[in-house]
């Protein structure tokens, strides 16, 4: 599905293979990422949740769990797509060596997107298992939360790869943070959209993470509506645009 399908149809799957080779030894880096969303769930959901009560008839931990799942998929994907791709592109010269083989910029862009998406998915699965055990999945629709997390990961991985090709130094990562943090805080993660004045609500609705959270929340709570395909289409679209930008930029940077 999504970037995996693209990767298996191009030579992108070879980048996936390389990354598995690397992380077989550095598994701690990936493993440690599982816990952050869980810590948030216990702290905000069960700790603070006591003072919040129910939102739309849903207990607070169950309300934020899907949001944390979507954020986990986003963070895993974006972190990998920006930091790792930037390093390989500017310092590691990893892609230079790949382009001396039959691999081309498309394979690199697609393969790295697939990997970043995969990392996001891993975190989503880890979180999902725990959240389900805690009763946060209230409907059989919840099974669709994982494919939804894949779409979320794809969208953010694609955008992340695209952005990574524009970063010039480690200082530029501050700019990435300046976008990510407000998105995490204001996209309906911890409270419903109705808290905002109407004008602001429309700003939040275009945030990619808001769409991701709506999508996953619809499934875990079983409130599936026609917004779901819209949310998914939006995320798929930004992912595709990101990959296309990355392919062009990488060709420009590497094939000179």
């Amino acid at each position, binding site marked *: 599905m999504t970037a995996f399908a693209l990767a298996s149809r191009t*030579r992108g799957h*070879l980048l996936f*293979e*390389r990354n598995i*080779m*690397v992380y077989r030894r*550095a598994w701690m880096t990936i493993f440690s990422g599982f816990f952050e969303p869980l810590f948030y769930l216990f702290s905000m959901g069960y700790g603070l949740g006591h003072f919040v009560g129910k939102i739309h008839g849903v207990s607070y931990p169950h309300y934020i769990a899907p949001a944390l799942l979507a954020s986990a998929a986003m963070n895993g994907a974006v972190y990998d797509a920006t930091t790792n791709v930037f390093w390989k592109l500017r310092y*590691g*010269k*990893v892609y*230079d*060596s*790949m*382009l*001396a*083989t*039959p*691999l*081309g910029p498309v394979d690199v862009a697609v393969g790295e997107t697939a990997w970043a998406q995969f990392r996001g998915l891993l975190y989503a699965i880890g979180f999902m298992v725990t959240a389900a055990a805690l009763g946060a999945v209230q409907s059989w629709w919840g099974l669709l939360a994982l494919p939804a997390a894949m779409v979320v990961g794809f969208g953010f991985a694609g955008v992340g790869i695209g952005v990574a090709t524009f970063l010039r130094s480690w200082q530029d990562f501050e700019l990435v943070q300046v976008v990510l943090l407000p998105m995490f805080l204001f996209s309906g993660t911890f409270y419903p959209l109705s808290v905002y004045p109407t004008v602001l609500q429309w700003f939040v609705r275009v945030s990619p993470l808001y769409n991701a959270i709506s999508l996953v929340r619809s499934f875990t709570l079983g409130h599936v509506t026609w917004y779901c395909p819209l949310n998914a289409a939006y995320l798929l679209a930004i992912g595709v645009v990101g990959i296309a930008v990355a392919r062009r930029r990488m060709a420009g940077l*590497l*094939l*000179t």
Partner: protein
Amino acid sequence: MDALIHARGLTKQFGSITAVAGIDLDVTRGEAFGFLGPNGAGKSSTMRMIGCVSPPSGGTLRILGLDPVKDGSAIRGRLGVVPQADTLDNELTVKENLVIYGRYFGLSRADVRKRADELLEFVQLSERADSKVEPLSGGMKRRLTIARALVNDPEVLLLDEPTTGLDPQARHVVWDRLFRLKQRGVTLILTTHYMDEAEQLCDRLVVMDGGTIAAEGSPLELIREYSTREVVELRFAGEAPEIGEDAFGDLVQRVEVLPDRLLLYTDDGDALVPVAHERLHPQSVLVRRSTLEDVFLRLTGRTLVD
């Protein structure tokens, strides 16, 4: 004869800078072909165009009969590339570098493991197979890069300054391996600014300067055409004296004045030495064979290594 590499009027521009200014080339199968020239002569740009990672700005280029812009991926599948700066994957071990690189070429996992072991043997790195790349010496990294370039059993091996930055011993090891490849019939294309490297390895070479080809031929042909049989080098305690081209009559064909010495080009060094001693009173005198360095000096008015 089928030309593996065929170029006519090949040009490369970066903005307003012309790196390669219309060169013609034909490299045939089994040949060891060299680009000799100083830094900035356009050697690496030419190599990158041949490696299909740099689209030509003008002229025609055919590699293995194919168009590098349209069929880059297919061509690269049949080339081996040793870039100027090592691009080894520091996150992987020595052997993993070879294995994954072979996978990039579409080799099966089983084949590539076997191939990796053979290649590590060939470049004498078997004991370091499971070591990380970072702690390897410069010479070892270079050998690993060469092994990596051979993983797909390439028809053509491109080497961009294969021994720059290596100590003399490490250079000889690399030369030895390249010589064996040449004997096996692999076509070698290399750039260098070391004349000894060019003389050791190349059947034929072009001298590049300022993006153009100044001369072409085998090392011997070039020396015969552009230099004399021998050179007398004179060093002086102070400034070298100013002398004209015809100061020694027929005995000296050409004179080069370098900052630290005087070069007299002659066909009979032994006859020239006593005469030069008597007339110029140098501090030291050396008679040697002409080399590609002299060819380069003649063609460009500059030395190769500053």
